[in-house]
């Protein structure tokens, strides 16, 4: 080791010291955080329901009528069946369960199930981004259903309000959210039908 290597060692020490000092000047200790390992829960799967079979309902109604005919005196004694729960209660229940504000009901053209949950997640995301809810965080309960159809290319058409919330502004925003989305990704290749019927429920509840 000659004097030049010693000089080189000194030079390196100076460089390292300079980096160390400059590093200390800018160094901000990172607070040690407890890290918890978590795993993502599966995304809520939208319910895939087949179109209601009208004939069966008819049969039920007929059966009910028959029962009513058979036992007319008991009619008054019968407790009134808890008919459809009020919309507000339903909505509150849904919110308690922690489901998202937008909830689709899917019907396929042929009546077969639409099992592509990833596509529905995209659908919810895209429309959700376009929905500017004016009643957010307000103490009101509103629910509307917008119906639309999606063709093979993902284009949205036949948009209409299926269930009125009772508030025109709210209805308008929900309609606008769907219309503004315009198009979605093309329907999955494996999906045989030509279009998809969507009944999208928009819900607001604090």
């Amino acid at each position, binding site marked *: 080791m000659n004097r030049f290597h010693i000089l080189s060692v000194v030079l390196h020490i100076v460089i390292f010291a300079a980096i*160390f000092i400059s590093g200390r000047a800018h160094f901000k200790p990172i607070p040690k955080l407890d*890290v918890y390992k978590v795993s993502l829960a599966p995304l809520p799967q939208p319910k895939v329901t087949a179109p209601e079979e009208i004939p069966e309902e008819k049969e039920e109604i007929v059966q009910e009528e028959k029962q009513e005919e058979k036992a007319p005196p008991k009619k008054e004694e019968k407790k009134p069946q808890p008919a459809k729960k009020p919309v507000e209660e339903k909505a509150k229940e849904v919110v308690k369960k922690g489901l998202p504000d937008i909830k689709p009901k899917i019907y396929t053209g042929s009546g077969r199930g639409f099992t592509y949950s990833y596509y529905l997640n995209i659908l919810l995301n895209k429309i959700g981004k376009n929905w500017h809810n004016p009643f957010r965080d307000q103490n009101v309960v509103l629910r509307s259903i917008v119906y639309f159809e999606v063709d093979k290319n993902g284009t949205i058409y036949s948009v209409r309000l299926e269930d009125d919330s009772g508030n025109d502004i709210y209805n308008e925003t929900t309609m606008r959210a769907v219309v503004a989305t315009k198009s979605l990704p093309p329907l999955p290749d494996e999906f045989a039908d030509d279009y998809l019927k969507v009944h999208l429920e928009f819900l607001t509840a604090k």
Partner: protein
Amino acid sequence: MNIFRIFIESSIAAQIIMIILVIFSIWSWGIFLKKMFDFGGVKRRTKRFMSNYNFHKDTKEWGNFGFQLTDNPYGRILASGLEEYKKLKVKVSARLMNQQESKKERGFINELADNVRMAMERTKIEETAQLETSLPTLSTFVSVSPFLGLLGTVWGIMEAFLEIRARGSAHITIVAPGISDALITTVYGLLVAIPALIFYNIFRSRVNSYSGDLEKFINEIYANLRKELLTLSQ
């Protein structure tokens, strides 16, 4: 960036690689400083010799350059040429004394004059070799350092994947240390290799340039000494 923190938190393999790279760096910078000093000295002494040489073009005066014939490559080449010339001069004079057919001796003198050139060429090779000392070492550092850095990179990534396998999770806190080890060794490798490559190229070009200048000087000396030998036969 705190390099010491990174060093301490690195794995043993990465630490060893970084230590080796620091040694390489110290070594290459040492070579650079030494060569700069050597080339500076050679340049200074050569300049002094050449100024003296340009004022004394007569071959008879060359022997009087004294220490300047030994302290620089030009002087040493000239000294070796002169030494060979003196030996030949004695031989040629003796031959000319015995034989009167001087014209036939011209070919013989030309052949002998080549000995002068060869002696100077030999000295030139020695001088060039002297100037090239440590350049192969620099070249080795240039080639090896990035590979060592790469080794550290591969090692770090391998450890990261082993951690993933052992813990069954690809969380950033598990993957990040291995990746940071991997990257820091590459940085060290490049920090060693890049200056070493620059130094190598600087010195290589200087040696080449110097070698060309020495060649021209040899030609000049050879022409003069050959002329001197030929005048003996006339």
